[in-house]
């Protein structure tokens, strides 16, 4: 038992509920985050190219970006909340150790968000200078991802926490962890790949209005996806090898569930490469969506293995109070109905127009 790990608080419902909600909401955040990376990256690339079709593509993507920031943040809130319920005693500590960087996420995000709005709302008047705004936004987003990677990896490894006694000013990073860079690249490159795929999916919405843009989006999107997925497979291997042996082995037969998920994910990666090369956009997207969920599950199994020597979520004390959870599910259902209704009104008014 590491003496630095804080005593956890009690939880109001069985831990499985939180694990379920965490695994339900995190992939939604990851998909939005991937799209944000892919749309920003492709839009920047298209904006830097000189031709008119690329400019129009850059603009189509720019118009979607503000939504992606909003939903990435919103869908990030829920898993961060459920993570804190189960693993707060780890996450709070790692956050404090790197507090200055962790807090910097907020101004970086505000900066990126406003830069993206400027890029979108002033697309025409900014001209090619718009590339500066989306470029800076992308840099900010990549920095945020780096901070997240540092924090999430530091939360896994209490042995590294003693660094606090040398530096209590919240300016630590987890650079010494051999998994840090492969983990970061795995998330970011994978993000650009899935984001590229999403650009190809969106191309279908533009086919009627602007076939040239749709064709270009489809081509760039699918190329981004397939090439980066090849890189991603290699990065995944690097990440796996960099994991501590005990953790790696759970995917290599020591834990049946982890190994099964890993094998299915590997097969799915190969499948999306094939369907991607064949330009089967919808099928690839469907499989990739499943793949993101599986990655989230693998990530969770790795965390459980990391924590295994000193903590199991099952051991959290439950002081049962289920009625607030009922309130949550009822609200979630009502909110979802409300959102579907609103979207239908939008589609109806679009049809009329």
């Amino acid at each position, binding site marked *: 038992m590491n003496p630095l790990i804080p005593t956890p608080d009690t939880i109001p419902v069985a831990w499985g509920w939180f694990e379920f909600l965490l695994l339900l909401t995190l992939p939604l955040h990851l998909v939005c985050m991937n799209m944000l990376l892919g749309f920003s990256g492709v839009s920047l690339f298209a904006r830097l190219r000189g031709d008119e079709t690329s400019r129009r593509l850059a603009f189509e993507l720019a118009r979607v970006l503000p939504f992606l920031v909003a939903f990435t943040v919103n869908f990030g809130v829920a898993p961060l909340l459920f993570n804190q319920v189960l693993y*707060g005693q780890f996450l709070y500590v790692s956050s404090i150790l790197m507090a200055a960087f962790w807090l910097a996420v*907020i101004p970086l995000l505000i900066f990126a968000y406003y830069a993206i709005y400027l890029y979108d709302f002033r697309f025409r008047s900014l001209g090619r200078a718009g590339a500066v705004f989306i470029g800076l936004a992308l840099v900010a987003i990549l920095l945020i991802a780096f901070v997240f990677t540092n924090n999430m990896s530091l939360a896994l490894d209490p042995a590294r926490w003693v660094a606090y006694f040398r530096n209590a000013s919240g300016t630590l990073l987890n650079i010494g962890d051999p998994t840090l860079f492969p983990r970061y690249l795995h998330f970011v490159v994978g993000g650009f790949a899935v984001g590229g795929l999403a650009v190809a999916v969106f191309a279908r919405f533009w086919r009627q209005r602007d076939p040239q843009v749709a064709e270009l989006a489809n081509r760039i999107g699918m190329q981004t996806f397939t090439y980066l997925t090849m890189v991603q497979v290699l990065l995944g291997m690097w990440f796996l090898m960099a994991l501590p042996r005990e953790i790696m082995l759970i995917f290599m037969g020591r834990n049946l569930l982890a190994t099964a998920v890993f094998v299915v994910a590997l097969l799915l990666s190969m499948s999306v490469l094939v369907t991607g090369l064949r330009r089967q956009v919808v099928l690839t997207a469907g499989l990739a969506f499943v793949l993101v969920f599986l990655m989230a599950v693998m990530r969770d199994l790795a965390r459980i293995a990391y924590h295994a020597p000193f903590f199991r979520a099952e051991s959290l004390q439950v002081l049962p109070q289920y009625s*607030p959870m009922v309130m949550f599910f009822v609200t979630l259902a009502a909110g979802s109905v409300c959102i579907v209704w609103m979207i239908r*009104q939008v589609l109806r008014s679009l049809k009329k127009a």
Partner: protein
Amino acid sequence: MNYPVWYLPEIGGSTLIALIAIVHVFVSHFAVGGGLYLVLAERKGVREQNPAVLAFTRGHSKFFLLVTMVFGGLTGVGIWFIISLVQPAGTSLLIHNFVFGWATEWVFFLVEIVALFIYFYTFDRMERRTHLIIGWIYFIAAWFSLFLINGIIDFMLTPGGWLETGNFWDGFFNPTFWPSLVFRTFVAVMMAGLYAYVTCAWQQNKDLKLAMTRFSGKWVLIALAGAVPSGFWYLSQLPLPARSLVNGASPTIGRALDWGLYAVIGILLISLIFTIIMPALHNRFIAFAVLACGLLFIGSFEWTREAARRPFVVNEVMYSNGIRKGEIDEINRQGFLASARWARMREFHEESLLETGQDLFKHQCHACHTVGGFNNDIIARTANFSYPALLSYLETIHQRRYFMPPFVGSPDEMRALATWIIAGLHGKPGEAAATPVATDGGEGPGARLFQNNCIFCHEAGLVKAKTAGWNVERVRSALDQLSALNPAMPDYAGSAAEKDRLAAYIVSLNAAGSTVPAMAEDPGETVFETHCAMCHSLVEGYNPLLPKVSGWSRDRIRTALDMLEKLQPAMPPLLASDKEKADLAAFLYEKAQGGQP
């Protein structure tokens, strides 16, 4: 204690919380009230069939989107980040108790985001009635997010029935839930009007500008008329300690409330003059001036609410430094170092007094105090203390100043904290002067006992003066119950033989041939050090006392000492005997006269 402390000696985490929280609340109330403003302004445009009003509403919705969704939304996440960095234990307590309150609030955020995007992007492109319904959905979702967070925030101030039951609903619908909800709803509506002044000021169309400025002015004045009484209702529901802090026992809250009052007057006057009486004069400068008043108002309210909760982060449950009230006895028994996970040393070592003291400061004081920063600087606040005075202050800190949490830990740890502050920060003689190494002042076992036990608070000269004329029996019996001599003095825990030796040494101080010079002692000075020096210096430094009594007669000072709390509500009554008060009055009178009696 359970968590590491983010140590920012000159800034302090609480300053960061205050900064982020105040700007967020300033925008988030706009996010709620502004939703209502948008739908009602749109409806006004529809009813009057006035395309200019609709265009105004559309323009305002863009401003609204950029301010609330980007800045408001992200600073909201920012509060969550900063409280988990600065108050991890408190945040964890809240998250674990109210996770589904927050999860439900998240659903409302999601609905808000979707509704606001649709409202903004389909303005003039959707059937008007449906568009208005989308606007209403936004407002209702936003108000419910206020409803939810209001329950959790007020739980921290007034946990109510939760203290007994631990039940979610008892904590959520706590004693200040409803007054706070009504108050915040009015404030949200007022904020909507204040922010609308900005959009109004940018209008080129004179008629439109006039109409919308008046419309917004009415919002502000009506909401203000509701906010003031509901604010008093809110205050009336505060528990007694918080109410007395708000009523003057806390000077910082007093100042915050003053600023809040000026802000309300500013909002009232500017709104009356520039939006109702002479709306034609409304301009961008006025818009920002009144917005600044709004910020001041929010700042004052939030500061007061937060400060009134002191010394707790969750009232009666957890102190601001993350220590639970219920675990204090256990920690006092075990010692703080043995209980704290994140202290550098887990055991007390005499030679590491300064490091230990700094760790204790980090874990017990840094939640509110900076070191050399502008906010609640520990150096300025302890400038008048001597080591013994600080030690005696720490022993009863929570009793003397309710809004400070008690010191938690062993007497040795308390010495360490006092030593770090006095010797480490101020460079004054502290604990070091009393370590066994120092042997001046006599030889023999009694002298050594004196050095090891008494000199933290008394030099030999002072004890010589105090015990002049005492025989050895009297000294010896006093050593059995030091706290009876002076409640601030801890009892001496030595054995009977040690007490005998110590008594012999103390008596020897006044014997012929003693080399220890008697320290001329003014009894009034001792009273001053014990009761006043924690808040007042005499002449220079923090809150000097002599200028306040300059020109006063000794009797007037003496009378004042009986009614300190009436002279200044921030001052506690002076808990001293009549003789002590007389000594203090004489001392202050003499000092005010320039040292001449």
